C-alpha cells in the first residue's frame, strides 16, 4: 500500500511539474496569459489537496480495522479530511476565479485555517483519549 501511494504521489508530483513547465512555455510564447501558469498550477495543488483530504478518513480494503478501533480518533480523522477538502476547494476556486492578488491571500488563509482546524480536532481527540484510557 505504501509503495502504491508513493508511486501515486510521485506521479502526481510529476504531472504537477510538467504542467507548470508546459504552462510557462506557453506563456513565453504568448499563447496563454502571463498569469495562467500560476493559476493552473495552483488550481491543481488545490485539487490534489481535495484528493488527499477525501481519502484521509478511508482505510484500504485490506487494512485491519482493529488497529483503529478508537471512534473519537476516527471521527477526528474524518473531520481533518473534510477540512482539507474544503480548504482545497477554496484554494482551487480562489485561483480559478479571484483576482491574482486576492487569490494568493485567500487560498493561503483557507488552507491554513483548514490545517489548524483539522489538526486541532485531532489533537483534541488524542487529548480526550488520554484522559479516558479505558474507553474504546
Amino acid at each position: 500500500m505504501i509503495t502504491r501511494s508513493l508511486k501515486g504521489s510521485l506521479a502526481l508530483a510529476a504531472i504537477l511539474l510538467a504542467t507548470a513547465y508546459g504552462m510557462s512555455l506557453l506563456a513565453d510564447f504568448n499563447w496563454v496569459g502571463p498569469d495562467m501558469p500560476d493559476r493552473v498550477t495552483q488550481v491543481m495543488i488545490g485539487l490534489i489537496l481535495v484528493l488527499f483530504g477525501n481519502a484521509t478518513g478511508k482505510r484500504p480494503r485490506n487494512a485491519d480495522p482493529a488497529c483503529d478501533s478508537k471512534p473519537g480518533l476516527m471521527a477526528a480523522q474524518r473531520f481533518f479530511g473534510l477540512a482539507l477538502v474544503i480548504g482545497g476547494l477554496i484554494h482551487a476556486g480562489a485561483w480559478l476565479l479571484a483576482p491574482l492578488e486576492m487569490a494568493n491571500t485567500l487560498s493561503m488563509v483557507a488552507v491554513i485555517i483548514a490545517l489548524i482546524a483539522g489538526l486541532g480536532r485531532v489533537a483534541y481527540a488524542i487529548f480526550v483519549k488520554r484522559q479516558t484510557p479505558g474507553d474504546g
Partner: protein
Amino acid sequence: MNDVFKALSDPTRREVLRLLKSGPRSAGDLADAFPVSRPTMSAHFNVLRGAGLVSTEKAGKSVIYHLNVSVLEEALLGFAGAFGLGTGVPPVSPPE
C-alpha cells in the same frame, strides 16, 4: 462507485452508517436497532461491505462493523438522507 450509490440508496443502510458514526458496533447490536429480520440485515451488511463503506473485524463469535467512508462518500450519505433517496424502494431480499 456504482456500488456506493447502490449502498446509499437504501434508508436502512444509511441508518446503519449513521449509527456507525458514533463508533464500531457488533452485527447483533446493529440488527437489534432495526425492525427487520437478521437475514435481511445480513444482506444489508453485505452490500455495505461490498461497497467498501464498512470494514469488519472478528471479535470472538461476533463481527464488529467499523465505518470506513471517504469525505465524498460521507457527503453523498448526507445528500441521500436529505433528499430521502430510496425511501419507496422495497427492502433487500435475504440471501438464499
